[in-house]
């Protein structure tokens, strides 16, 4: 119904690629693997993916993203791309981090279903088949769960348990293992989800704006064979702030002003109580009211006005931006009407 939103243009660089260079029609499946200093892993990884997917008899492609490696990763990937036309190799100018690499992989993938995985051989490409089966059941996002995780307990497993619990609580998307890179997405959905900063851990949470059907499956997890781990423990506050952001933007997709209004309630209550208390404390014939109380009241009330003003500014930003709730609704809706998706 109604005319399509002017902002509903889907960004489709991948489709442009296929048109421009006359590549074959988009395949069913794209496997996206970011690499950062993984010169020893890249060869075995490619072989494992091919070995796992060839027997399935579906059309697939691999998108390898080199995140500015300083070792021979780029050269080896290019050699592989030369041998295997199903490999699309995206090379970054410098190191931008895993989220950016994932985002680039998603952008340059053309498949109907996108599977992301780590380049360090800890995920097993043989599991992809399970993801495809699950997607075929009608899910929009399928998330892996490393149920026998091969990592150090104290430095990796326990912080991640806490983080996962927190993410579930705050975003309302209960996922046992957000940190598992092995995930499958419906391409049309994930391409519309803004991915930036260090958000790759929270893709399902962000995607929850669109209300996707999310499933979890257990996957194998291998101990690291080559290279070294690139993550540390020192991320708690970053995760907390990122969570805050996701919660906010996800709530914002309906009403920014409302969100700020909620934030402003406590200030308003404290302010009013203090102000009224200050006024009542003044005795008849007494020259001065309670200065600290009235002052506090005025400050808090003033602040709540400022917050409401910020919320209004938020509405404005949101109106001018290009993230529209209807777009997200359109991504996951099911309808029996034959429906034209705006180009």
């Amino acid at each position, binding site marked *: 119904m109604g005319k399509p939103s002017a902002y509903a243009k889907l960004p489709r*660089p991948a489709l442009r690629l296929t048109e421009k260079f006359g590549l074959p029609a988009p395949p069913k499946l794209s496997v996206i693997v970011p690499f950062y200093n993984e010169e020893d892993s890249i060869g075995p990884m490619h072989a494992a993916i091919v070995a796992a997917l060839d027997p399935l008899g579906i059309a697939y492609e691999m998108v390898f993203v080199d995140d500015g490696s300083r070792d021979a990763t780029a050269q080896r990937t290019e050699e592989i791309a030369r*041998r295997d036309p199903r490999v699309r190799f995206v090379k*970054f100018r410098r190191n931008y981090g895993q989220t950016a690499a994932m985002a680039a992989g998603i952008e340059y993938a053309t498949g109907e279903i996108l599977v992301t995985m780590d380049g360090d051989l800890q995920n097993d490409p043989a599991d992809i088949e399970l993801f495809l089966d699950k997607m075929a059941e009608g899910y929009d996002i399928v998330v892996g769960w490393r149920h026998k995780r091969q990592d150090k307990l104290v430095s990796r497993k326990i912080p991640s348990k806490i983080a996962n619990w927190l993410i579930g609580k705050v975003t309302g998307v209960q996922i046992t293992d957000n940190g598992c890179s092995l995930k499958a997405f419906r391409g049309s959905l994930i391409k519309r989800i803004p991915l930036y900063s260090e958000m790759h851990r929270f893709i399902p949470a962000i995607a929850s704006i669109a209300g996707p059907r999310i499933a979890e499956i257990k996957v194998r997890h291998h101990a690291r064979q080559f290279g070294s781990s690139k993550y540390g423990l020192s991320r708690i506050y970053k995760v907390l702030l990122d969570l*805050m*952001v996701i919660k906010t*933007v996800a709530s914002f997709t309906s009403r920014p002003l409302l969100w700020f209004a909620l934030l402003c309630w406590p200030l308003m209550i404290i302010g009013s109580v203090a102000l009224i208390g200050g006024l009542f404390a003044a005795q008849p014939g007494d020259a001065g009211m309670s200065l600290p109380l009235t002052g506090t009241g005025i400050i808090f009330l003033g*602040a709540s006005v400022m917050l409401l003003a910020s919320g209004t500014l938020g509405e404005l930003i949101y109106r*001018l931006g290009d993230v529209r709730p209807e777009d997200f609704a359109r991504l996951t809706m099911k309808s029996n009407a034959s429906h034209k998706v705006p180009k």
Partner: protein
Amino acid sequence: MTHAHSLSLVSVIVPVGERKSPIGALYAEYKAALSTLGIPYELIFVLDGPPQPAVEGVLAQLAAHGEPITIVSLARYFGEATALMIGFEHAMGSVILTLPAYLQVEGGEIGKLLAALGEADLAVGYREPRESSWFQSLRQLAYHGLLRFVTRLSFRDLGCNARAFNRKVLEEVHLYGDQQRFLPLLAERQGFRVKQVALRQSKGDRHAETYRPRTYTRGLIDIFTVFFLVRFTKKPLRFFGMIGVAMGALGLLEMLYLIVDRIFFHAPLADRPAILLASLLIVLGVQVFALGLLGELIIFTHAAEHKDYKVDRVIQYAGAGGERAAPGGGLRSGEKSDVVSSSLSG
């Protein structure tokens, strides 16, 4: 790349602002230096600020005599970075050279900059050896130290405007106001290779410059802007959140202390402003945090246009063992715009 430009041409951009040498002599010096290099060149003078009829007259006369000069005059003062971007719009060369409007380095040194471009995308000059008063040196040291501390990138002389670029650097790094001095910094952030080149200081540059307080203020604000752009563009909440939480926590602690003090120890509140300070801190904390959230909202709603990353190239070979490569056969293609450049363009 949008311009049809010649591969060997060097475009020299000279932003002419407040500080300038007599333009005829300046041109003669630059011309002499460029001619000895034996490469084709053009000069673009961008006159920034209130009308400079004298300068424009001299340049127009030179141009009338067949000198390769383009004159662009801006209607008011826009800042050197804007002048540079405007000049770049008129540049046809594949290599861009910027030179100051006063003799900062010796003309003969220009060749060194162009030579350094062979292994870098951007060659930045620094004056060495540098002759200046102790106050200037101190100022210089403090400025660059602060900048290094704030951005974690090290440059020796950002005040030196003799620089050479590959064209694509200026196509991707957008500047405004007085940010041209930070161009090497921003370019390095975007993954360009930056090289610093020692240049001999010109005699004309050796008089002590006195800055007004306003200049210092502007300098500090510039450093803050660059600090924010380099470190927090994509995560405003990390920045505002940190400050907001710190202030709010401080205020809450003080408030708690005051409440305990009042209720259990009967310390009077009325005759001191402590509670006002506490509530101000809390309120400020909440507001700064809210500003961070607004920043995040701006990023989120525009994330689709401003990519976080720069793709060097996309390689895919079509057909089994075939040599037909797509896209671009391993050549540069599918370049993305980076958020830093986009947000800088305002």
